């Protein structure tokens, strides 16, 4: 263990061993982001295989067993190992910078979080290598289907352990973020000067802290059910399978906000910068964020309207409530753009895509919050459309915006605007052609999670269009990966300078990439946008030589 006793780090190109042993939040953030994009690509490939099967009625390429593994691991991979870690990765890199700290509060714990996440992903996906294949009961694994009787084999056990490992990673990570925001802010950085992105991460961390343990406990109980004997989730054992749904969705709905809030934060950072204005209604935005987090604890059973075992009226009421702070966020973003000077660079394009698509996803969410409508739409392609409008059209689009926005900070190199715009248009068109028609398919009676569907009039054509359009998403995403490889890895991108966009928060007041301790000098912090203030002050002062 030479690295443990070694000399202080020297500024030189990082070697593999540096990454294996690093405790630097910036390196760990990059590792999170690279790994998450890796899982995003893997999950996308699984989806493309599914779409190839669904392009025509009847089974052509796959059997049911394979198909069921594919959609299970697509959902699991995207939710636990792609979208959530993308948010965590950006938080890792940016949160200490935004509050003016040299690192997170517990750097070694932070490294442990990353390695547990990677291990969890590998363990969950290793189910594909076992004789009976990966888990095949959907990403929310309802028992009794997920117990030993109906899903034997090692794949489901690996799925459980993978999620437990990544859950532990999330809990440690959230402790770290909360401690960092609460204890390591730079002088002058009061809570109401903390950037919106960091506020969102704070709320997300709290959601993780309160709900991931519930998931971990539920998974542990399921594991005992599977390996020892059915005791918790089956009617034979005198219990019931609805209990799992309560435990799972008590985690699972806040999880939706764990996947959405970081990206609301991204949008709240990108919109003001590219509108040349300060964010409109900062305090209202913080309040709306906290409110969304709070409400998310009271809505879990809107995933259970059709079970007949919960108070549908109560959960309808609480679910409708969430539309209010979400609507406020929209108006705040619009008011920020209003009478600004909007530059349509790639980050802003993706944010505009986010705004339109998340609007669709948010509105279809209000439909689903109404139990009578949910009786028809639940577990149909309508839900598939809704969730992808939220998680792909929303979160993933904002994640792409974040990449185009912050990669210049992370790497010191600009990404290609031309490739970026091609990426944007391909994914925008591909995404909407893929997922919009699914609303109608669902309402017409196409259930989700089916390897095959009846050749009803129009269904074959619609599914063919969807499958073809999903190819556009793949091409667009490939362009993105190429853009990053070309600009950053091969070093072809133009030098970014410390502040290529005219940024507002503290990360734009240090070099790109930032030095080991993040800041050499700290500008005065008198608002939520110290970098902007510093620029104004510099412009007002006459230059002295």
């Amino acid at each position, binding site marked *: 263990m030479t690295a443990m006793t070694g000399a202080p780090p020297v500024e030189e190109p990082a070697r593999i061993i540096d990454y294996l042993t690093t405790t630097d939040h910036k390196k760990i953030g990059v590792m999170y982001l690279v790994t998450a994009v890796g899982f995003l690509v893997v999950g996308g490939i699984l989806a493309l295989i599914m779409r190839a099967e669904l392009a025509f009625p009847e089974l052509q390429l796959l059997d049911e067993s394979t198909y069921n593994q594919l959609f299970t691991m697509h959902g699991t991979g995207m939710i636990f190992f792609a979208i959530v870690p993308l948010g965590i990765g950006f938080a890792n890199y940016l949160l200490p910078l935004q509050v003016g700290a040299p690192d997170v509060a517990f750097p070694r714990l932070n490294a442990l979080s990353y390695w547990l996440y990677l291990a969890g992903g590998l363990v969950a996906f290793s189910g594909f290598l076992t004789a009976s294949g990966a888990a095949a009961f959907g990403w929310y694994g309802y028992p009794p289907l997920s117990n030993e009787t109906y899903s034997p084999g090692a794949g489901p056990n690996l799925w459980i352990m993978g999620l437990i490992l990544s859950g532990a990673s999330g809990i440690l990570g959230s402790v770290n973020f909360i401690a960092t925001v609460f204890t390591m802010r730079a002088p002058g950085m009061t809570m109401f000067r903390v950037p919106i992105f960091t506020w969102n991460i704070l709320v997300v961390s709290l959601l993780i802290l309160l709900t991931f343990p519930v998931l971990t406990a539920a998974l542990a109980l399921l594991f005992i059910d599977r390996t020892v004997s059915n005791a918790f989730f089956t009617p034979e054992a005198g219990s019931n399978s609805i209990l799992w749904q309560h435990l799972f969705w008590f985690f699972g709905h806040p999880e939706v906000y764990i996947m959405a809030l970081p990206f609301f934060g991204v949008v709240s950072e990108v919109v003001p910068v590219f509108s040349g204005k300060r964010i409109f209604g900062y305090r209202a935005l913080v309040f709306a964020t906290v409110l969304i987090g709070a409400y998310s604890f009271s809505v879990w059973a809107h995933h259970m309207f059709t079970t007949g075992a919960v108070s549908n009226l109560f959960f309808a009421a609480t679910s409708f409530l969430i539309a209010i702070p979400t609507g406020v966020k929209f108006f705040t973003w619009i008011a920020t753009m209003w009478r600004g000077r909007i530059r349509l660079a790639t980050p802003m394009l993706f944010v505009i895509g986010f705004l339109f698509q998340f609007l669709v996803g948010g509105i279809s969410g209000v439909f689903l919050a109404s139990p009578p409508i949910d009786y028809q739409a639940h577990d149909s392609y309508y839900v598939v459309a809704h969730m992808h409008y939220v998680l792909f059209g929303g979160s993933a689009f904002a994640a792409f915006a974040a990449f185009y926005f912050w990669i210049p900070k992370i790497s010191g190199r600009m990404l290609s605007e031309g490739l970026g715009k091609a990426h944007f248009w391909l994914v925008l068109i591909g995404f909407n052609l893929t997922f919009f028609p699914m609303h109608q398919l669902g309402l017409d009676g196409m259930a989700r999670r089916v390897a095959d*569907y009846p050749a009803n009039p129009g269904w074959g054509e619609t599914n063919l269009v969807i499958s073809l359009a999903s190819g556009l998403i793949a091409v667009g995403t490939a362009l993105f990966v190429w853009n990053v490889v070309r600009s950053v890895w091969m070093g072809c991108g133009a030098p970014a300078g410390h502040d290529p966009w005219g940024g507002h928060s503290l990360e734009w007041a240090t070099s790109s990439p930032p030095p080991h301790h993040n800041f050499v000098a700290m500008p005065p912090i008198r608002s939520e946008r110290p970098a902007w203030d510093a620029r104004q002050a510099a412009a007002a002062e006459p230059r002295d030589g």
Partner: protein
Amino acid sequence: MPRPPARLRLAVIAGLAAVALGGCAPQPVSVEGEAVKTLYDIFLAVAAAVFVVVAGLIGWSIVRYGDRGDDRQISSTHENLRLELLWWALPTVLVIVLFILTAQVLGRVDERTDDPGLTVTVTGFQWQWRFAYEGSDVVLTGLPGEPPTLVLPVGERVALDLESPDVIHSFWVPQFLIKRDVVPGRTNRIELTVEEPGTYSGLCGEFCGLLHHRMRFSIEAVPADAFHAWLEGGGEGIP
């Protein structure tokens, strides 16, 4: 100023098209389905209005306030209490209205009568359905490749008791606009009145294992007298 109105119009048309494509619920054939469909249509109208207003505002700001390289003044307003109160109030009013409408329809759809005319026990199991008519020996069970047909009378209130011996399934008839989970260890009941005679397809809505997609059935809605004759005749064939 280079043609913002044309682009704006395009944005609005695209928005309307998006909403129009947003989907129509299928034509309902049951009394309860009718209520759900009405509710859905109201939601769709509200959704279309909200989408057009919000998307219009977004589109307008992008087009109108786009950077054209000029030195136009940027507004420095970053707070406006009246405006903010307005946009807290608007969605609040909207969701209260939607909630009240929802509560009314939910009451009708989930209404339970003490004594429905006909009770059928619907058993969903991997990966078939069985329909047992209460008060008679008629039991219809699906076989692989031969999905069963649930025969129902038109114009009579029917109760369906949903039961599962294995995993969770879900009883879904898209044209009734109703879906209810079939949960082992509990009996879920739905009640409905079919209005239109005809043949409708039903399926399992909750993923239930390997051959989930093959777990389908049909519904044959026939006039009440034909139905009762069929039931008393031992449920042979399809009336």
